């Protein structure tokens, strides 16, 4: 037993992990304890029971394992940390991630990796609607399918879909790029399928490797990017502005 930022924590010596039991502490206590850990530390959150806002705002290179289902915004706002969820996750997993990794060993609900500026969000199951919405430079890799409106308004970054994509893929896309290994049910406004270049194969392959997806063949993905007709001023349409 030891004191960790005012919270009683147990050390699992076999795993070299600090164990925090969420059944006995508030989310704020747990997050404050995680933020007090030094670079390289390992921690485990037991009994998460789908609780929201776990492991958010971490700014050091710590490894946090969440031993069960997580709720909304797990791992959000993080920089440098590595967060693993041993179960499904709720809305906004890795929202506004700056760097580091958030990995969900299950399905993710809506808006996975929303507004992520950097880092990598991996969903080993399916992701629901609006995955990668407003992505701003981060990377999102989904092993399974993604729901409707994936990459809506995504500005920068890369999305890899190992399964199928739903309706309105890439709607109102800016400069983010999407690679889909399976079928695409429908493209959104201002999104189109483009030829796959060597650089795309390398990018999709690197993302698949980082995510640990051996079921994705980067030579056989579909590239979806912006037509760029929505966000460029066009003098031919000046009367409409």
């Amino acid at each position, binding site marked *: 037993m030891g004191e960790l930022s005012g919270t009683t924590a147990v050390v699992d010596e076999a795993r070299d992990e600090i164990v925090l039991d969420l059944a006995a502490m508030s989310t704020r206590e747990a997050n404050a304890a995680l933020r007090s850990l030094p670079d390289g530390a390992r921690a485990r959150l037991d009994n998460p029971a*789908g609780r929201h806002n776990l492991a958010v705002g971490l700014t050091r290179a710590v490894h946090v394992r969440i031993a069960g*289902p997580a*709720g909304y915004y797990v791992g959000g706002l993080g920089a440098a940390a590595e967060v693993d969820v041993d179960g499904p996750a*709720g809305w906004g997993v890795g929202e506004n991630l700056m760097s580091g990794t958030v990995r969900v060993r299950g399905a993710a609900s809506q808006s996975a990796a929303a507004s992520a500026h950097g880092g990598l969000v991996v969903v080993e199951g399916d992701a629901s*609607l609006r995955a990668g919405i407003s992505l701003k430079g981060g990377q999102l890799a989904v092993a399974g399918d993604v*729901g409707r409106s994936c990459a809506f308004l995504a500005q920068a970054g890369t999305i890899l879909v190992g399964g199928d994509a739903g309706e309105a893929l890439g709607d109102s896309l800016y400069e983010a790029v999407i690679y889909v290994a399976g079928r695409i049910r429908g493209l959104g406004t201002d999104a189109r399928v483009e030829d796959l270049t060597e650089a795309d194969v390398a990018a999709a392959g690197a993302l698949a490797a980082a995510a640990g997806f051996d079921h994705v063949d980067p030579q056989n993905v579909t590239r979806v990017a912006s037509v760029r007709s929505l966000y460029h001023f066009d003098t031919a349409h000046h009367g409409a502005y």
Partner: protein
Amino acid sequence: MCGIAGLHLKDHTYRERLGAMVAGMLRGVARRGPDSAGVAIHDDVPDVPDVPDVPGVPGVPGVPGVPGQAVPGVPAAPGAGLTVFREVGDPEEFAARIGLAGRAGVRALAHTRMATESAVTAAHCHPFVAGEERLCLVHNGSFANHATIRRRLAGLGIITETDNDSEVAAHWLAARRAAGDDLTTALRRLTTTFDGFFTLAVTTADSFAVVRDPIACKPAIIAETDHWVAVVSEYQALLGLPGLADAVVFEPEPEEVYLWAS
């Protein structure tokens, strides 16, 4: 916000435990709707429900001028038992007061309310019950055109009890059912008639249905096993259900009507 939970038993395995299961689900969505709560429990045998004396509770802090009110149980409809409790106040205390965990049944809806568009009174609580068949509805979201539809219903002689937006949807669905629509058709029509955000769960004497708005603004998770199907706003509300580890868990698609009938 608002939290919804619905449970439909596909066989009699958990009939005696229905209330306990719903109580756990209600606890899981309690934080989404701390100002009031309600449940509707369907039984498959006609009965006179055992309605305890539900006391009124003090007004909710921060909502001045709203006295506590309780609607202690609606009598059972002929041919099918239906018991409804709705009350202002903390959802978990409400569940304890009505003895929810000890109640049996075959199908139930539960709601926790965070009011955004009408008063905090027991009459404004979900589930709303409408029509001859006593259709029950819980709603997470808001409707923009409920006043227009309320006026249309009034023209048909259908008068809502309150100015609540969700109540209009319950009466409108009941009116469509009375006009001959099956529940799936009525819910499909609802998605194009009502403007707004919604996850709806609806029950009748023999059916359980779920539908979401075209962009699925409000959360919904369905879990299904051989014995039961449940819909909840948040995953944590599923955690106490027996056999969850082997359940099929998915998020319902926008505008798709999901229906189970006994």
